[in-house]
């Protein structure tokens, strides 16, 4: 019976667009069987943990309790305590992440443009550069960060050369500075910026650029009026994929920073959990971080978002 219906539909299929057909989703049990196991995992090990985290952030520490002993409570004071102690780390994390995102965009856009547009006629070179673009995913990011630490070290030739040409003062450092942490963040999340932009520019119809050139637009005007607006969804996705992990990262700050003016919120959460054994404080900070990112991202999507994102 159902086959008959489908056959009938098949006969008039040419009258409908592919989108219209897609809109007609099937009913049935199979869909439930497909979706439920995975969603159960997401519920048990993502949604529920976030709720547990939220409740843990309100735990109280009874008088005279041992280290790591807490009782369920509604201690909203935890938030006041950790925020007043660590607001500067929180602000710094967002500041570093923002600078790293902007730098990654400034570096990453030309990379994506080079590979996707300029080298479109050069299949081999394009292929090689594309492989190099995803290459960092296949090497350990902690090893790469550690490599930067050694490359920029005081005894390294980069620091020595900069000192020789007096760009860097004789007693200056490259590592253990905010500069090194931001450079590390930019470096580590650069591929997340480049790949979405590349995917978007790969679909760019270069005839549009010819057309705008024919209409006497300079290449610069064409870029800002045609190329950039058309690649906006890629830029949008790339900035999110860079900013979110950068704001929560603590590996770069731990390896490339110092303990004075580079501490990021991730480091604080980690040490609250494992060194200080202050679970409620760590949970409160985690929750604040998650909420502030969600708010920032929501505002960003409202302002610049496109439907193509989802």
């Amino acid at each position: 019976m159902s086959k008959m219906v489908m056959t009938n539909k098949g006969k008039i299929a040419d009258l409908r667009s592919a989108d219209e057909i897609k809109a007609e989703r099937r009913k049935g049990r199979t869909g439930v069987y497909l979706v439920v196991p995975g969603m159960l995992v997401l519920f048990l090990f993502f949604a529920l943990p976030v709720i547990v985290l939220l409740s843990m952030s309100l735990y109280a520490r009874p008088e005279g309790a041992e280290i790591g002993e807490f009782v369920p409570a509604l201690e909203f004071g935890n938030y006041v305590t950790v925020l007043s102690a660590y607001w500067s780390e929180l602000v710094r994390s967002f500041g570093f992440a923002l600078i790293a995102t902007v730098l990654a965009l400034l570096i990453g856009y030309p990379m994506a443009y080079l590979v996707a547009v300029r080298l479109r006629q050069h299949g081999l070179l394009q292929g090689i550069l594309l492989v190099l673009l995803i290459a960092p995913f296949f090497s350990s990011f902690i090893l790469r960060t550690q490599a930067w630490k050694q490359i920029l070290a005081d005894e390294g030739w980069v620091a020595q050369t900069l000192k020789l040409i007096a760009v860097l003062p004789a007693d200056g450092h490259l590592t253990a500075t905010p500069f090194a942490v931001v450079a590390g963040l930019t470096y580590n999340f650069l591929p997340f910026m480049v790949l979405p932009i590349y995917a978007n520019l790969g679909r760019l119809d270069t005839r549009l650029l010819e057309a705008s050139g024919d209409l006497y637009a300079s290449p610069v005007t064409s870029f800002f009026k045609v190329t950039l607006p058309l690649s906006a969804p890629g830029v949008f996705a790339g900035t999110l994929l860079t900013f979110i992990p950068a704001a929560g990262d603590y590996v770069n700050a731990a390896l490339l920073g110092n303990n004075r003016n580079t501490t990021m919120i991730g480091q604080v959460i980690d040490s609250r959990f494992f060194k200080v054994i202050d679970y409620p404080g760590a949970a409160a900070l985690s929750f604040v971080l998650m909420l502030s990112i969600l708010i920032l991202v929501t505002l960003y999507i409202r302002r610049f978002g496109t439907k193509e994102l989802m």
Partner: protein
Amino acid sequence: MKQKIGRWIIPAIGGLAFVYLLVPIAYIFVFSFNDAGRTNLEWRGFTFENWQNPCGAPAVCESLVNSLQVGVVATIVSTALGTCIAIGLVRYKFRFRKLTDVLIILPLATPEVVLGASLLAQFLNLGWELGYTTIVIAHIVFCMSFVIVTVRARVSSLDPRLEEAAADLYSTPRAAFWKITFPLLVPGIVAAALLSFAMSFDDFIITNFNSGTFQTFPKFIYVAATRGIPAQANVIGSAMFIAALLVVIVGQVMAYRRRKRLAEG
């Protein structure tokens, strides 16, 4: 003249950026040949010894094997579950669609340290001992959202009329799925699986929260970083990199040949 500069400025910046991207990788590779002794901080002379004896430093290979085991299991489970969700969501009717969408997207918008911390809170609450199982669960969770998004894009780009054509030719829905739809999804599923493995293998932050004393390769390097990473870690890093590069290149060549064959009819 001004035009010329404009033409070259983007390739120049792009080219420099590629150098920036690859410098540390080259550094890791070069220093895998360093006659380093214990710390591998400065160049002491060329040797093949590290490559001949990659397990020479304590705990390097144990942590590597641990990471591979976690990566393979997490990849298989997250790819299977995520692919099913992607197909189900695109092709079937649901209530609570908004809610499932939120549950899928939210992990992507959550920084790793929060994912790690919330899972740790959950495991502490349940009284589970941290180790292999908790790491695998954590990795499945953060890989799955990536799998769903990747595969879902592939499923919704398929023309549903292909399946209808199969039905017109008296194929059962099941046969139409396995003979038409699934083969077309394979490239997306493979890409999602590779991405999952790469992310699981390289993950440090979430793992660090949920691993207890269980050692993974990134954890090993992070801990070793304070007192000097052995050159063997560079060997393993370089070897993994070369292996992955070969996989990608072979894949590209195969795709290129297939396109050529199709073009020639």
